[in-house]
């Protein structure tokens, strides 16, 4: 089934959908411009605007549900942004975007609330909330935009917010560097996206979804493939897919709520959104789709492998995020059959990964911002609520039956298996590794012996931090089942992305599912023996070649350094040298040459009158001679 028509809309909550964006934006503006005067209530304002936005989203959702499924693509026009290129830009409220809106504003609000506690002692808390609000606004613009330009504005806007938040503790050089790196790597992706947008514009002379998608089939295969691949580059950058993954691990320099909100639940999933949103184009370009799935699988494995070797709790979780988004991308590459699973996994992942990150934050909060898991251990008693919620998140992510991840991830694996067996089995393998590294993480943190250092007095976090954990873990438990069983979500989403030819049926005892569960169990058990039951050394053992490989992020940074940074630095030095000595050298050399020739030539003017007479005499002879020559020509 094809996606539904776009319908121009006004009125109701959808009519004021722009408020979703505007509210947090105003919040950010007030907080940034207001300066220290807003310090006192800044965090509250941040939370209120996020919540307000959530309320609008819910109302819009309800209103949307009120329409018949075929009429659920509601566009609202705003204004002429760039006359000639992006005329009459507006917002598009459809099942896909509203799902994102709910996730962003919902999880976002929770994380806002959590941050009140987490950042309580930070002098820059107001600024933090401003940035968070800015992020929420940009992210909402990204998903609500009804055209590629506005999408790109949001796209880069979230990049900016991410930059600001990763570098929030800018006095730490590592944070500043990580922020810059994130931005630049994202820019590489954006470069691809930008070219993709240009190709779309050059092909269709329009950038509006409503105009481009219906006409997409008219374009040549080559063009569509090119567009698809270029959009994929953009998606890779934002969603930390291979080969543009390297920034995500460094991005953990930011405060933990940021990691939860941006680098786990929402922003990094923008790539998935882009692919799903542009599904019409991808479906018309099989090559592009194939590449998408390959990238997804490669990343899900890579992320998982990285996750196995990290001792930094946040980096381990970041690896896991990479991996999970790899699943989503894989699903998004499959087509309508995978879209619903991709988005559903995206949503559930938003919950449980946020839960895990915030839990990790809670742990760090308790451990004086220690992130090395080798210095944790036996925290389950010290922080019971955190432990419990973390455990739920853990079970959800490894796909423990009946928890959210179980439904969504298995859906992806099944679909992949149906689509292409190799991809499917690789996805299964990824699930097994997930079982291992997540178990490792939980065991190292909450089980085993205390390996705390110095004056660590772990304690449970305040309610303002634990309540969001509880709510998120609730989502982690129930959401998956709710969405997947009976293809509820797939049907809901269909007006936006279409339906596959035959609807999948949920089969709790499929072969794939069983194998997956078995592998996960093996991984978890193996982890128990290595990290739960056994003594965890305080310093990481050297480990095998594989461990080193994983620890060093699969040599991603080394590769970047060797391929881009070093040659880049060299090129820069060369260019500067060339500019100073080459181009400027020619100019200055010319000037010096004229000056020098002047210095030499003036010696002709010897001061001897006889020399002057000679020059006149010779000149006269030359003049006569020249006249002869010319005259006789």
């Amino acid at each position, binding site marked *: 089934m094809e996606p539904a028509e776009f319908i121009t809309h006004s009125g109701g909550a959808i009519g004021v959908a722009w408020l979703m964006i505007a509210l947090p934006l105003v919040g950010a503006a007030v907080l940034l411009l207001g300066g220290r005067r807003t310090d006192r209530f800044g965090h509250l304002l941040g939370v209120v605007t996020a919540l307000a936005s959530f309320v609008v989203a819910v109302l819009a959702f309800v209103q949307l549900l009120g329409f018949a499924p075929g009429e659920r693509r509601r566009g609202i026009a705003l204004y002429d942004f760039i006359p000639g290129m992006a005329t009459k830009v507006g917002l598009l409220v459809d099942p896909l975007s509203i799902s994102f809106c709910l996730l962003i504003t919902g999880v976002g609000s929770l994380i806002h609330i959590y941050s009140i506690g987490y950042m309580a002692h930070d002098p820059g808390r107001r600024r933090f909330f401003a940035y968070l609000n800015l992020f929420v606004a940009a992210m909402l613009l990204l998903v609500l935009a009804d055209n590629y330009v506005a999408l790109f504005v949001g796209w880069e806007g979230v990049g900016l917010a991410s930059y600001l938040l990763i570098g929030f503790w800018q006095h730490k050089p590592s944070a500043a560097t990580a922020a810059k790196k994130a931005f630049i790597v994202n820019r590489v992706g954006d470069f691809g996206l930008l070219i993709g947008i240009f190709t779309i514009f050059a092909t269709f002379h329009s950038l509006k979804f409503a105009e481009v998608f219906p006409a997409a089939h008219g374009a040549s295969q080559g063009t569509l493939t090119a567009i698809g691949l270029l959009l994929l580059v953009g998606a890779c950058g934002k969603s930390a897919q291979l080969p543009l993954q390297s920034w995500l691990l460094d991005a953990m320099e930011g405060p933990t709520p940021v990691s939860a909100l941006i680098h786990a639940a929402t922003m990094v999933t923008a790539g998935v959104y882009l692919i799903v949103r542009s599904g019409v184009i991808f479906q018309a370009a099989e090559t592009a789709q194939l590449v998408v799935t390959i990238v997804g699988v490669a990343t899900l494995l890579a992320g998982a492998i990285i996750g196995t070797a990290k001792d930094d709790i946040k980096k381990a979780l970041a690896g896991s995020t990479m991996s999970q988004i790899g699943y989503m991308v894989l699903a998004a590459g499959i087509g309508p059959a995978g879209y619903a699973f991709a988005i559903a996994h995206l949503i559930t992942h938003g919950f449980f990964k946020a839960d895990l990150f915030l839990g990790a934050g809670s742990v760090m909060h308790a451990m004086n911002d220690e992130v090395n898991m080798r210095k944790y251990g036996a925290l389950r008693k010290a922080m019971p609520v955190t432990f419990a919620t973390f455990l739920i998140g853990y079970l959800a992510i490894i796909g423990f039956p009946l928890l959210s991840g179980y439904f969504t991830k298995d859906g992806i694996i099944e679909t992949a298996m149906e689509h292409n067996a190799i991809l499917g089995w690789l996805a299964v393998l990824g699930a097994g590794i997930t079982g291992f590294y997540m178990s490792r993480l939980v065991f190292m943190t909450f089980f085993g012996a205390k390996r705390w250092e110095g004056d660590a007095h772990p304690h449970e976090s305040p309610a303002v931090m634990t309540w969001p954990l509880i709510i998120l873990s609730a989502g982690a438990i129930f959401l998956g089942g709710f969405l997947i069983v009976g293809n509820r979500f797939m049907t809901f989403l269909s007006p936006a992305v279409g339906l596959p030819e035959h609807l999948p049926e949920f089969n709790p005892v499929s072969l794939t599912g069983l194998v997956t569960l078995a592998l996960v169990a093996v991984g978890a058990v193996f982890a128990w023996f290595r990290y739960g039951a056994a003594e965890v050394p305080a310093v990481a053992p050297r480990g095998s070649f594989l461990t080193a490989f994983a620890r060093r992020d699969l040599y991603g940074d080394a590769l970047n350094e060797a391929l881009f940074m070093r040659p880049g630095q060299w090129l820069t030095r060369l260019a500067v040298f060339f500019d100073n000595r080459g181009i400027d050298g020619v100019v200055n050399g010319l000037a010096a040459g004229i000056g020098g020739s002047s210095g030499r030539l003036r010696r002709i003017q*010897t001061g*001897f009158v*006889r*020399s002057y007479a*000679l020059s006149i*005499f*010779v000149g*006269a*002879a030359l003049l*006569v*001679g020249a006249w*002869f020559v010319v005259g006789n020509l």
Partner: protein
Amino acid sequence: MGESITFWVLAVVSVIAALGLVFSRRAVYSALMLGVVMLSLAVLYAVQDAPFLAAVQIIVYTGAVMMLFLFVLMLVGVDSSDSLVETIRGQRFWAIVAGLGFAALLGLGIGNTLIAAPKGLAVANQNGNVPSLAELIFTRHVFAFEVTSALLITAALGAMVLAHRERTEPKPTQRDLSRARFVEFGRHGKNPAPLPGPGTYARHNAIDMPALLPDGTVSPLSVNRVIARHEAEEGTLAPEVAQILQQEEEGK
């Protein structure tokens, strides 16, 4: 035919004289050589139906201008002879190259020109050379002629400016001068009498001989320094004079 002979003789003479002008060490010789050229040219003018110019050439040029040259030469120092060693690098070489080239260019150019037989001045001179010239000068060229006066006035004025010094105090009389001489004698013991004349003998009657004092020695005061220097250069200086000059030199 007569013209040819005159021409060839005078051409050779004038070219040699011109070369002499350029290459003689002494300025006076150069001046005399220039005189020779001018006189030769005067004759050539006469040969070419320009008797008036020939006369003017002799009177004005050779008579006045050359005299002026000689006069200034005397003023500047007739004894000074140019060293012909060239000090500017390449000057002489290029001068001669350019000179030869120039001469060749002009000579070839003019020599190759097809020149018809001269029209001659018989018609133009039918009223006589001088009246015809006068007519031209006072009609067609009268303005130039008048303007030339400005030139002459300028010349006179210029000479005045550069050479004439207006006296601003009364001219000293004989009396003042002799008074001054004796005051000088009183103060510094400077001889108030005139210097002794040169020695005049039967064998020598020239100013280049020094006077002898009663004891037969040479009087240093009577030695003409300029001449002595010349003779020293030529090696004809009398030994006793040389000795005295030597002593004087050391005495300083």
